[in-house]
């Protein structure tokens, strides 16, 4: 077929629309970045924020890092993310592995019990009361334990384990290996890719943790990052005064947005492949 001019137009239109989509994904964050580094003097001069400031200041970042709840919240979130992800993965694997053994007595009962929780739940109030009765309110465990295992991830892990060849287990058992040993020394190394993918989703989940924090945590010292950033965002904006060296509320707010999203934005491009794989794993099962 001859490459027609129609074909060329088609290509150009495709590329233009895709560029617009790509730009629309990035532009808002770039603008947020620009606001966060705009000195107050420029705001006054221009009568507001503009796309590209002529000079740059890191005052807002300095102020947030030295004189706000943000560094502490950062610490809380890092702690919750680290402990949480490890526990998530361990318990998810320990739950999925036995369920992948087709001969396990009671297997279908356990599977049904897990799938049912995807269909029906007690709701936020009864769950809150359980967390309260367990004495978990106002502890970092309240942000980890109530969501320890995502049923969906159990199903993904389970179907991965099922795909491992049976001979693998047979030979190990003949050697007299115990089940925990088989899981740790044979199965775990083989499941590094799927574990990594699932671990990434758990990690992002913890980093973006908001819901459980507002439900179960009222102690300010334990507020995670997202809760503190939202607090900063809903501060009423102070009227702009003519003090050259003050930092406008908007600048502080946008600096906090950049700080909170920075780790994800930095790490994400390198791990994108694994995320995409996880999405497909999930959708095949779903």
């Amino acid at each position, binding site marked *: 077929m001859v490459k027609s001019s129609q074909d060329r137009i088609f290509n150009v239109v495709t*590329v233009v629309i895709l560029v617009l989509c790509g730009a629309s994904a990035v532009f808002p964050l770039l603008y947020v970045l620009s606001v966060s580094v705009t000195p107050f003097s420029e705001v006054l001069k221009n009568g507001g924020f503009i796309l590209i400031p002529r000079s740059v200041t890191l005052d807002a970042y300095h102020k947030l890092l030295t004189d706000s709840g943000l560094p502490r919240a950062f610490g809380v979130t890092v702690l919750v993310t680290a402990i949480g992800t490890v526990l998530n993965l361990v318990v998810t694997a320990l739950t999925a592995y036995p369920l992948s053994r087709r001969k*396990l007595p009671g297997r279908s009962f356990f599977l049904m019990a897990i799938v049912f929780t995807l269909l029906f739940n007690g709701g936020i109030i009864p769950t809150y009361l359980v967390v309260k009765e367990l004495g978990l309110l106002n502890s970092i465990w309240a942000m980890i334990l109530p969501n*320890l295992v995502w049923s969906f991830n159990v199903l993904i892990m389970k179907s991965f384990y099922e795909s491992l060849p049976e001979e693998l287990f047979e030979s190990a058992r003949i050697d007299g290996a115990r089940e925990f040993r088989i899981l740790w020394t044979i199965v775990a190394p083989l499941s590094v890719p799927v574990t990594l993918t699932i671990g990434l989703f758990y990690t992002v989940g913890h980093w973006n943790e908001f819901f459980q924090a507002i439900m179960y945590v009222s102690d300010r010292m334990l507020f995670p990052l997202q809760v503190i950033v939202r607090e900063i965002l809903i501060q009423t904006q102070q009227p702009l005064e003519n003090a050259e060296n003050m930092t406008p509320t*908007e600048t502080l707010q946008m600096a906090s947005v950049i700080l909170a999203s920075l780790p994800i934005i930095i790490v994400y491009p390198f791990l994108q492949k694994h995320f995409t794989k996880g999405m497909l794993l999930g959708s095949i099962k779903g």
Partner: protein
Amino acid sequence: MEMPIAAQPRAEQPRRLASFFGSAWRFRAFYVMLLPGLIYYVLFKYLPMYGVIIAFKDFNMSSGILHSAWAHPWNKHFLTFLHSPYFSQLLTNTVLISVYKLLFGMVPPIAMALLLNECRVKWFRSLIQTLTYMPHFLSWVIIYGILLALLSQSSGLVNQWIKDIGGETIPFLTSTSYFRSILVSSEIWQNLGWGAIIYLAAIAGIDPTLYEAARADGAGRLRMIWHVTLPGIRTVIIMLFILNLGHLLDAGFEQIYIMYNIQVYPVADILDTWVFRTGLQQLNFSLASAVGLFKAAIGLVLVLGSNRIARIWGEGIW
């Protein structure tokens, strides 16, 4: 030493119970592994399901779930909700926001997948993918921050432009006429690239000979999209649509809770946000649980129904 686990299939015995426990014993290591997961499910999933009985009680903190008195009549809290002015408002908001998200959110990822598929320059394609997948990983708090930067009345970029051309600034984030559109469009923005992944996978599964045949018939690229690609992913499109219908009552608690404010409650307050405020802020646990149960019960019917439809429909196709 432990018995080999994957032993021969057990012979059929009259004493089935004994044989059940016999084989269960051989699997004991697996049950030990299951233990932490089981404890989790019992404590945080099944205990709350039992806890919904407070929807039928007059719960008070000091008596706890077990010892609080039963409500009289048993459906008192449900009646209170049904007769309250909130009922229709919450249900309308929840369903409307969901339906808008479903309808308007459907096409953009499909279009995105088609465009990416038509793009033949590999590095460009993966660059666009990387960029457009990114918003999916940003939290709603971050996205709210972005919206403030763009839309706030005092200093948002859009209002800055409006001011520059001499117009009146618009309170986008606190106005009932814009709020739902903002919810829907911010979700579309977040999901544009990520939602395309599944369609791209479906497109990759289309038989390439179909394209060759179409090309031999002299079809241009637009025609091939219309006659080959779209029919090829139709199943996935309809399937996702049906499955999403099952979540009609989840309009997106976290997003709305983070973005809304008292001025937009009339258009933004959904079942979940109301349950949260009524239960945890006004401490009306029984009423909030009743509404939560109402939502969960309808949700169960919707999910089961939509899965059933998807399955019947799917069998018709495959």
